[in-house]
């Protein structure tokens, strides 16, 4: 079974993000970049499926500037078999990303597509769902457990108030939640092996996708800094404040 995994290059989660002074976006110059943490979980799940003998080939795909090849190489070092880089320096919004991935899906015909549920830079939580709709595949989002069973996959989803398990026909789209697995680290010997794995580069034009944005960003602002809390003397005082000041009860 072929598995396609999509990974995204984003600001490293340890970096303190700074908004550009003109409020047009966040400052990316000289900022440390890394693989989106949810995408790491997606790669790990695919590698585990391969180790169990369920998956036979893992193809990893990333959309972005030339430097996004670093993240593809990381995925290859973690156990993916080959990479596809769709190179562009343009802004890629969720719908355009989904269209590009749909074009890859048409070509590669994977049985399972695994994506992170969202990327930590834009937090849109859309691409997986859009891809499923465009490709006409069933979707299991926010997965905390994935079990492939013949030509079906059982996906346990994290939803408000508990877990829901859905059964999907393959081919299907799965997006990962935080608790699905704990990703491994690339070992030194595997970094060397990754160097020899094939990496194919394509352009959005090759795949016939127009990247013109459908959404316009009006303004980007840093979230308000959290104000210091206060200590209350008694339960009565707390209830009073919640009732009369915060007006939440």
């Amino acid at each position, binding site marked *: 079974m072929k598995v396609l995994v999509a990974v995204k290059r984003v600001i490293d989660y*340890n970096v*303190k993000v700074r908004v550009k002074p003109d409020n047009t976006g966040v400052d990316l110059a*000289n900022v440390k970049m*890394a693989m989106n943490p949810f995408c790491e979980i997606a790669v790990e799940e695919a590698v585990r499926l391969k180790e169990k003998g369920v998956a036979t080939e893992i193809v990893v795909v990333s959309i972005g500037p030339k430097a996004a090849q670093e993240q593809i190489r990381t995925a290859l070092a973690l156990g993916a078999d080959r990479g596809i880089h769709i190179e562009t320096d343009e802004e890629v919004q969720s719908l355009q990303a989904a269209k590009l991935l749909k074009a890859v899906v048409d070509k590669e015909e994977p049985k399972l597509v695994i994506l992170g549920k969202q990327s930590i830079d834009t937090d849109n939580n859309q691409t997986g769902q859009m891809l499923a709709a465009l490709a006409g595949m069933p979707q299991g989002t926010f997965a905390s457990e994935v079990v492939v069973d013949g030509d079906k996959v059982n996906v346990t989803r994290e939803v408000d108030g508990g877990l829901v398990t859905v059964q999907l026909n393959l081919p299907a789209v799965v997006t990962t939640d935080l608790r699905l697995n704990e990703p491994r*680290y*690339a070992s030194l*010997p595997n*970094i*060397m092996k990754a*160097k020899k794995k094939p990496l194919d580069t394509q352009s959005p034009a090759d795949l016939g996708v127009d990247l013109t944005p459908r959404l316009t960003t009006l303004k980007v602002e840093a979230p308000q800094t959290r104000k210091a809390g206060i200590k209350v003397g008694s339960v009565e005082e707390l209830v009073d404040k919640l009732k009369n000041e915060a007006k939440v009860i």
Partner: protein
Amino acid sequence: MSEILVNRRDLAFQLFEVLETEKLTERTRFAEHSRETFEAVIETSDKMARDLFASHNALADKDEPRFVDGKVQMIPDVKRAFDAYAAAGFIAGSYDYELGGMQLPESVMAACNGFFTAANPGTAGYAFLTKAAANLIRVFGSEAQCRKYLEPMLTGHYAGTMAMTEPHAGSSLADIRTSATPTDQGHYLIKGAKIYISGGEQEITDNIVHLVLAKIKGAPAGVKGISLFIVPKYLTDDEGNKLGRNGVALAGLIHKMGYRGTTSTALSFGDDADCHGYLVGEPHQGLKYMFQMMNEARVGVGFGAAMIGYRGYMHSLEYARERLQGRHPSSKDPETPPLAIIEHADVRRMLLAQKSYVEGATALCLYGARLVDDSNTHPDETIRRESGLLLDLMTPVIKAWPSEYGPKANDLAIQVYGGAGYTREYPVEQCFRDNRLNPIHEGTNGIQALDLLGRKVWQADGAGIQALIRRMQVDLEAASDKRCQQWAYSLSETVQKAVKVTQTLGSALMKQGADRALANASCYLHLVGHICVAWMWLRQANVATKALQTAGSEEERHFYNGKLQAAQYFFHWELPTVAQDIVLLTNMDDTCLEMSTDWF
């Protein structure tokens, strides 16, 4: 608090722009590598260091290892981190592919290990000790010893230690008393006691391989009678199955100021049960073997000190950007909003001092690691030899300068935080305590000074010093703009004075004897240290000046301007401090030498 402990942009600058590490891939040994693989390994180190090491740095300090029923108890995070480090292949990173290694250059491995030290020196200690002990066995051990001990050490199943110090003999190894008695079964029986043995007991690995210095009965007196033995915690058969405990026992744990995650132990050998030891190499050659590995170990200590210094700098820089306090001296209006403390000139002084210390020390240590690479793999035999000579000469400086100025940087980091820095709620006080070990171990800085002035400078008829001056000359001439040329001029002036001082001390050594000539060796170490670090800043400034002309973005220009300003700080504020050393050394000041012990 941000978990960025080392500035990756700076590391890339030092490795790839200043040292041109990518060129190493032209050599056969590194031919399969590229900048891409180097960066990928660095990325893995950075990530693992933050996720698995930094995460329990404070906890391992607070909840330090305890001695319970003859065993060591410690938090489980330490084992988890050690196992992951070993499983990723870091212990064997620079080894041959055939040994499961990755044939990485020492300069890249040093950079990688820097992240682990910055994140958690206590836990990283177990891995580094194992790597050092493994290196000794690889070079001097028999084939059978390598199979039995080296292989499981490289995979992290066994750990290693260096057991040298005894209760009455620390720096003075000539006086050790631990004895080795030959038996007719091939092994020796070891008897004695060792102290301050780092990692001497733990429950992280299946077995511990102690490398023990001991004297075989009837051996010559002093350092010429010391032999090196493998003493495993558990005896094993050739297949690695445990046969039972060897007679090496934990006598107690020592409670330290910092580096608390690494157990420091008192060990007894052959007290209650026979303690088997296996001779490494030839009898009476133990100290020689140890010292052949010492260069790399000492470069490692210097780099560790630089990295803990670096971490403190990063923390205090972030704090200074966010902490709002006070107004400019010119502002009299209390209604104006307070400034971030980084706006105050004195805070910027403390940050700039830290920057110049830690980035200068990092440059010095990476240069040292590159010398290790060049002395092993440079295609030109002359350069291989020259690099070896230079490494020998510079080792005491590379060990001592960062381990003096790393803690100084940490001291300033605490000062930037103010009262908060003195509390245990913030990380910088631990950095300071951890780093305070570095001027002491692997040969105290006092001993490094004696080694430099009493031995290294005169080795090979001063060929090392000549090579050092030759290499400096290249960078002095490369200074292209006015600012760099000015710095080059002050460096060259200082070097000339240092050469004169060296000649004075050389003739004093001959005429007045070592006691008098070496009495102020620490000033000499400081002088040479400052010259070397000034040289490192000139090298960085030369590269930054050029890069600034083509820098594409504002961020890049900020980075290179920062480098130039830090270089200026070092040349204006630090290099002139050697004037004092030059006066004391030239006059052969005898204040300390002539101070009678009765006058204290």
